[in-house]
């Protein structure tokens, strides 16, 4: 999967939009599932896809994993541009 392809998936797009709009957020799959209103197991998989794309950072511990938005300015600019082209 690449970033452009992630933007074509509704779920991935919702998650990207959530983290782009709330860049200071760190949340568990359960939390993100609540914010985007989607199924937790699907969200968990999508979060890992976005980690592989470096769009999210995974903070892993033995009990849970927290996900947060990338700090790479270049990637954030790219997401801004792609979101700008999407209908809100």
């Amino acid at each position: 999967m690449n970033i452009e392809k992630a933007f074509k998936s509704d779920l991935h797009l919702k998650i990207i939009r959530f983290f782009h709009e709330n860049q200071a957020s760190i949340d568990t799959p359960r939390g993100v599932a609540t914010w985007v209103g989607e199924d937790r197991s699907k969200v968990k998989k999508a979060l890992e896809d976005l980690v592989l794309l470096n769009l999210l950072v995974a903070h892993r511990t033995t009990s849970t994993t927290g996900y947060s938005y990338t700090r790479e300015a270049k990637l954030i600019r790219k997401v801004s541009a792609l979101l700008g082209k999407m209908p809100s």
Partner: protein
Amino acid sequence: MDKTGNYAYQKELFERLRKSVSLKRAEECFGFIMKSASWWIIEKNCLKPGEADNLLLQHYPQIKKLGPKKWADCAKHLLEAIKKSAETKKLFNFKCNDEMQGFVYPIVQGDRICGYIGANYLTKDISSEALQIFPAFADTIVKEVRKELELSKLYETLRPRAIALSTVHTVHRLISSTLDISELLPRIARLSLQIMRAQRCSIKLVDSKRKVLLPKATIDLRAKKIRLKKVKVGMWAPGKAVKFGRPVRGRDFMATPLIDEDVIGVITIYDKIDGKPFTAFDQEIMSTLAEQAVIAIKNAQLYKEQEKLTMGTIKALAKVLDTRAPGAYIPRASFIKIAQLIGQNLRMDAESLKSLEYASILHDAGEIFVPESVLAKPTKLTGEEYAMVKGHPAAGVGIIKHMKALKSAAPIILYHHENYDGTGYPKGLKKDQIPLGARIMAVVSAFEAMIISKPYRSAKSIDEAVEEIRRNTGTQFDPKVVDAFLKIMKKRDLRLLLEKELEE
């Protein structure tokens, strides 16, 4: 709310009213009854001199055809109607021209009028029933739109706070999941950077004399090399935050004290990624994070203290045992290390590794109950003597069973003489029935017994002992453990440590 806030609210209210589906439906419904040609809604603030002309022109462009006089008359009547409806706060009808009429109804917010809703050029007479019904309709629609607006405002206010709260909760879970302070502090620093979207974070803890802040974890996204600097209490932002026990915030830095009963340290973050200044909201979030962090740090410090205490107790116990057979029970770092490396190689978790460490020191503690003459006997043991030897793992567990911190080491001590093929003691367990820690300890203790010389037995060389372990794989020892052991024994530094300790 200030004037600007009110004005912004009113603007948004009218914006929503204009787009309201309910209002459109009402217009259609009343338009059908009254044959209205032109409906309008206007804010009071927009009603300036000459605005009535525009209002008419905008909502009824055909007015131009009526000529300037009729246009002016209509505008005059409209303004009069607006004035009267403002005075009475009621619906007021007016004449547009000889055939057509209109009405104005004020939109009231609290005790003041904020705008008007009206219709021009109704081709039918306005019936008194319609005049009575319309205000109720209009009020309901305005109320509905106002509720929608308030809900959306509430959502806009609450959602970021709920997300921030959820973030704090997640951070709490992430930092509470470790008791290892060397892992905890960098984790807190990384999470602080993430939340604040900043470039650098430094965590300093107050030294025992409370004069200096010692750098414990620093993460800088820009620098490859990081200089760790001590800071005097009272100096710079971190020192001031500690001295005064409150956050110190500048445009590009924010120092938040870690306060337990006293200030124990400070988290300082620098330079936001987007170059913006740190805000009061950032300070609020960092203070909450610091509260969580201080609990986790105190827990980790207490755990470390307790661990030191436990290890001290174990070493003291080993020393007591050693008085009977000097050199036999003093823990050798090399054997503890071999056991740890095998455990790591077999992916044991931190807690299991700790139990293995304790067991590495105390696995033969129960031998204290076996007479020296039996332990040192060079010839075959009698049945009674062998029974005594077989009892030493259980006796070892008996020694540690009252120490809660060592409870997890008990199965390792109890079963470290079990053989992989089920021929060992005390229970004759085989394969996976034997706890992994005990299978590791079986290899390490056998290796230790072979290479340490005793008064009654000469020692084997390291290579001979390694070969003996290899020979017994699958029978006495777990093949997986032996594989890990053989891999580890190739490490040069471990060999050197082993040789050095054997010489001593």
